[in-house]
């Protein structure tokens, strides 16, 4: 007969893998691909610029703000970077009245820019093909 610790271990493992399977499924319906086991499936080169009422931020200040380089390569879905900026600007930086623009090229051929605050009523930021 299985001991109680063995049963607890079994339940833990079922939950542990069950959550992962659910996360993979949920990931099909979200723009960000966190917790879906999606490494290196999209490569974007990006550049972030941030303007506060006092003036534009230097690259080091941008890196400090989002803990991401002001310009670089994102090896996962670009929405990961955008969601970090969105979360910062709606929480820690909500009072800063920052204007953010992210220019990015995904997989070498799709060129977009994303801006904050959102120009749409969704409040989610807006991504537009850069022409």
């Amino acid at each position, binding site marked *: 007969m299985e001991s109680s610790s063995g049963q607890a271990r079994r339940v*833990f493992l079922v939950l542990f893998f069950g959550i992962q399977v659910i996360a993979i499924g949920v990931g099909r319906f979200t723009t960000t691909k966190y917790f879906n*086991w*999606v490494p290196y499936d999209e490569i974007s080169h990006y550049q972030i610029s941030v303007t506060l009422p006092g003036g534009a931020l230097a690259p080091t200040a941008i890196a400090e703000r989002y803990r991401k380089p002001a310009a670089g390569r994102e090896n996962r879905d670009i929405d990961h970077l955008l969601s970090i900026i969105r979360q910062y600007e709606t929480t820690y930086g909500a009072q800063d009245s920052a204007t953010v623009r992210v220019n990015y090229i995904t997989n*070498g*051929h799709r060129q977009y820019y994303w801006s904050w605050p959102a120009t749409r009523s969704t409040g989610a930021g807006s991504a537009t093909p850069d022409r």
Partner: protein
Amino acid sequence: MLLYLVFHRWTVFEEAWFSLPYLPFLKVLDLIPAGVFCPPLLLVLALAPGCILLGYRPRLASFCLGVVLILEVLASKPLYSTSQLFLGCLFVLVGLYRGSVFPIRLQLSLLYLGAALNKALEADWWNGHFMQGLALTFGGPLKPWLTWLADAPLAATVLGVTTIFIEITLGTLLLFPRLTRPIAVLGLFFHVGMLLITLGGLSWVYFYLCAATYLLIWNGEAARGDYGRYLPSLGRQHLSYLYGFFIAITLLRYLRGMVAALF
């Protein structure tokens, strides 16, 4: 895994130094001050590797280390890393090891199948755009070949589609213990191939982690005495070669980094 953690993911220790939570996935974590959140993480990060190396309650240490790695990811969106999450899961599963390596097989299988599913649903992987973009991103001695790939949509498409099918194959067949050896060999070739294509610029992390996971599975089977049944011609000597290869690659990479820094 510890080598990878200490040498390749030093940020794990830096971030735990009173700078978490920061833009967490779980908003509730924002309510916990860094002065309260970080010390337990630091304690585990400081003690667990030593305990594992010295063999003092290694499974408990491994489990705690895995939980801390996962907790760090949950506490910081900018810190999010699939490889750190995978490493955390592996440590947790090693901590729960009770004679069967099936959970570790399942973890690696989920990684491959999750990656394959996402690729399969992305048009850029079917029309060659991803591989062409990849070719333009990486340079180095293979630059001429990569430039050729960028201008060869058919070859880029074949590479992209092949990747999807290799990942599906690895993820599915990994669940069959009798196929451990050929699948591990295919997996290692696959990761080495990715390293070659990107000239080590992209896939080092997964080469390390997947090689470590294959070793975990093999060692687990060896410990259970399943060698004879599943791996008739694979002996400890072969595992030693693999470990040697693994460590040699690590040393070479650091040597290259040191030379580049000096000159």
